[in-house]
């Protein structure tokens, strides 16, 4: 396989920014969470890519990706529970309406 490392990194960056774009623009909290998952995955992809190209025999990159996946699972579980809880409170999952912390 002859893909230079840079292309993978660009792919990761672009995916991250797509996720970021979603997180910045979507109104629905669940959609925002999905966007965050995209960002997460882009970052995990970078771990694996760096592991593949630069690992020199160590498995640290893979281990890190593995733990990142596990953390992401926990994060999404709690995040979605929060979304459900917020929904019950506001009867809405619109992030524009969650502004109780307004200064």
């Amino acid at each position, binding site marked *: 396989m002859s893909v230079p490392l840079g292309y993978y990194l660009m792919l990761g960056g672009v995916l991250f920014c797509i996720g*970021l774009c979603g*997180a*910045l*623009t979507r109104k629905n909290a669940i959609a*925002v969470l999905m966007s965050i998952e995209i960002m997460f995955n882009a970052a995990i992809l970078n771990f694996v890519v760096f592991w593949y190209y630069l690992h020199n025999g160590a498995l640290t990159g893979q281990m890190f990706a593995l733990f990142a996946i596990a953390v992401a699972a926990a994060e999404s579980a709690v995040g979605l529970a929060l979304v459900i809880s917020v929904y019950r409170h506001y009867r809405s999952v619109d*992030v*524009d309406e*969650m*502004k*109780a*912390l*307004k*200064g």
Partner: protein
Amino acid sequence: MNELVKQQWLIPFLPLVAAAVQSLLPRKARKLSAGICLTAMGASCVLALRAFVGTLGHHEAERAVWNFVWFDYGTTRLQLGFILDPMTAAMALMVTFVGFWIFVNATGYMSDDENFTRFFCFLSLFAAAMLGLVVANNLLMLFMCWELVGLCSYLLIGFWYFKPSAATAMKKAFITTRIGDVGFFLGILMLSWQAGTLNLYDGGNGALEQAGKLAGLHGWFGWSMATTIAVLLFIGAMGKSAQFPLHVWLPDAMEGPTPVSALIHAATMVAAGVFMVGRMFALFTAGGSAEHPTFAMDMVLWVGCFTALFSATIAVGQFDIKRALAYSTCSQLGFMMMALGAGGLVPGQFHLLTHAFFKALLFLGSGCVIIGTHHEQDMRKMGGLRKYMPITFWCYLIGMLALAGVPPFAGFFSKDEVLLVTFQRSKVAWGLATFAAFLTAFYMTRQMFMVFAGKWRGGHHEPHEVRWNMWLPIAVLSVFAIGLGFFGGKYEHYLGVHEEELHGKSLVMGLSVAVGAAGILLGWLMYGRKTMAHAEEPDPLEVKLGALFTCLNRKWYVDEFYDATIIRATMLLGEFWRVFDNRVIDGILHGIAWTAWGVSQVVRWVGDEFVINGGFDAGCEGVRLTGREFAKLQTGRIQGYLRILCLGAVILLVIWYLK
């Protein structure tokens, strides 16, 4: 003994663990909470007993220490350590033992409280802190525990924080002791700076072992360095041990539950100051002699002496059963300090031990009385309790006799020694102390008669005897209140201090017995011969609640038959000190405050209107406008923040790119 010292940490550790566990318990787990607490304290007590037995075989004042490194920073190495010597062992045993019985009593006293587990959590933490203070061989650790003790007393005094008076009292206690702690902390810093270590004993390199060297250095006000540090440390002890003028928090601390009062006033908090002075005794005496004592010793002596007399007079005029005991404690602490100041380490520490037992007994007894009379604290609304609460009565009587210094009881021996050692130093101090001892006997007698003699004056609810878990502790403690005094000589031997032959023994002892008897007799004359019939009946002291002059008149109105000059003088004196306390000391403080306020008013009048106003207002307006504008940025919308974050990242990248 060298092996035992390595287990000293267990003594405070067990209650600490108990506190930690209890903090996690649900409210409902009352039995479990009390069980954990008592088990931990009992185990600590056994450990303390083991340590005590371990020290018994050693006649010399030898000590085992065990220091360990806490952490290093730079080249400085912070050490903590534990100590095992006779004074520590005796103190730890006393604290654990008395504490254990106080805990037992508390299970009864707090049985109706819904925050039972919280109470026991704090109580355990308090015991842990106090024990840590006792076994510490390091001023740093001692200071940490010292502050922890302060914190716990704050929490416990304000346990019923929903009562405004309790909330005020907790703050007052905390702040007043904090004033003393400033001095204490300064002293620690100076000691660390001068001695280079905070370890008390460290095989010749400890801070106390360098006291001689410190005495040679120059400190403040022409004192030697040792004396300077000692004075600063003593300021801390004044706060903790409620010595004049930092005594004001102690009576207010009565807002806490009664077991707390017992713990604070007998075994722990107030003892901490006296114990600390005893612990740092080498520093106080360094550079002085019996003929020419250091300033620090003089200060301890006279502050103690004054407090002893001053508080005793106040105690005479109290109606609240616990408040009277609180002033009495102040007074007794004065005795201890006075003994220490007079150079008598042994009498001071010994009086601390005996006092802990009988004062804990008295406080727990008063707790029993309060529970038995359905939360009544006013002595005028009691009376005749002897009939209803016989066990409490007998125990309380023993405690009272011990405090009054009646011969076979513990208080007699220790107080006698205190007076004796004071007699060697200063006849004036001795005289004042003897008078205070007389007052002590008097106010205790008054209390006894008001509470236990006569008829029940409290209304429809008849008092009842308390449950076993409340009277058992005071029964146990009363055994010690009787017997402990006989070990005075042994204790001296045990501490390994061999004092020179004291003169005037018979005179001091005789006079002590005489004033004790006189006080009791006088008390009986005033209160015992004709007891109060009902609660509204004016008491000689009830007039105190009114304005000063009408007070004086009405004070003797009913009891003019018993009117005697000496009592009148006493009353006047007591009244005077109360007023002095209220008006003069408070007045000075108020004066300062008012002056500052006045100055600020003037400044405002002159400067504000014409000079500062315009510019300042403009500035304020600017600040407010900016604030309003910036507040708009905080929209509460998470995406807005994310946007700003993203913008920042882009800007950073652009800057980096252009660089």
